[in-house]
């Protein structure tokens, strides 16, 4: 790395940091979808349709996630971003 490069890289934020942040989100999402019961995708779709009867939303404004906290407890987490009024 030359002196010039040194100043150049200091100015822009590191792309490796961006890569890591993106991966943390991607991987968390991927792991959430792992080992979900077979009925899950269909159930998720129906939930979205029920909400759509009342509010206009896109499918990506809804996240439905199943968290297996331990052997005895699973939590179904539903997040809906409602459009601004």
């Amino acid at each position, binding site marked *: *790395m*030359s*002196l*010039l*490069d040194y100043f150049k*890289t200091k100015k822009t934020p*590191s*792309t*490796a*940091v961006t*890569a*890591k942040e*993106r*991966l*943390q989100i*991607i*991987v968390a999402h*991927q*792991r959430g979808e*792992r*080992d979900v019961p077979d009925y899950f995708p269909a159930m998720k779709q129906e939930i979205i349709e029920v909400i759509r009867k009342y509010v206009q939303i896109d499918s990506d404004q809804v996240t439905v996630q199943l968290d297996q906290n331990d052997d005895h407890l699973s939590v179904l987490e539903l997040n809906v971003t409602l459009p601004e009024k």
Partner: protein
Amino acid sequence: MHMAQIIVVTSGKGGVGKTTSSAAIATGLALKGHKTVVVDFDIGLRNLDLIMGCERRVVYDFVNVINGEANLNQTLIKDKRTSNLYILPASQTRDKDALTKEGVGRVLDELRKEFEYIICDSPAGIETGAMMALYFADIAIVTTNPEVSSVRDSDRILGMLQSKSKRAEDGLEPVKEFLLLTRYSPTRVATGEMLSVADVEEILAIPLLGVIPESQAVLKASNSGIPVIVDQESDAGQAYSDSVARLLGEDVAMRFVTEEKKGFLKRIFGS
């Protein structure tokens, strides 16, 4: 009585260095005195034979053995350079559906009787070929490049190892997973252009088997059909040797993970 170990070299993403690593690790284990066979699961796109330099000695292949058209003795290729080392080539003409769980299981059971280590070079992807390569594994070497798509695919493969492998299905002790980070460039990590070893370790959260630097020695090795681990002058060759030692339980410090120290003038004026 020995307990044979089935090791899959897998990744999800293509072109990350699975075949390079399978050839190097199999050769490394054989050099350490362990009777080893390396099996090409990339049906239709074989290239392990090229990396091992035995392409002209292929007569029969994995699919012939599964179909009972040839036996293992006729099909296994004995490495010319390294004793204790054998290659089971893939078929060039068939497609991946030629591999069945039953057939692969039968061949692996037979190999288990003869070999200490069975290295399975997985094809890319998450379809039949890759599934067959990982299904019977005791150990998985998850080959990953420091790149977003490769790390994501490695995480998907980890999910499959944990739910779709035989060990998972049978409720046995899970497949032992290791991270092999390849094509690593400490200089680019230092400038913030590449994910670091620590970043990838943190995201995938599995033990690190080794870090293989981006190296010109790899192309040289593949040009000549000699696994890069044989080139002990090279950084990649040494890094693979270290990884094999760790696989065998030795405690070896990581090398080639930090930027090489350059002279003061070189640092100022660039190289």
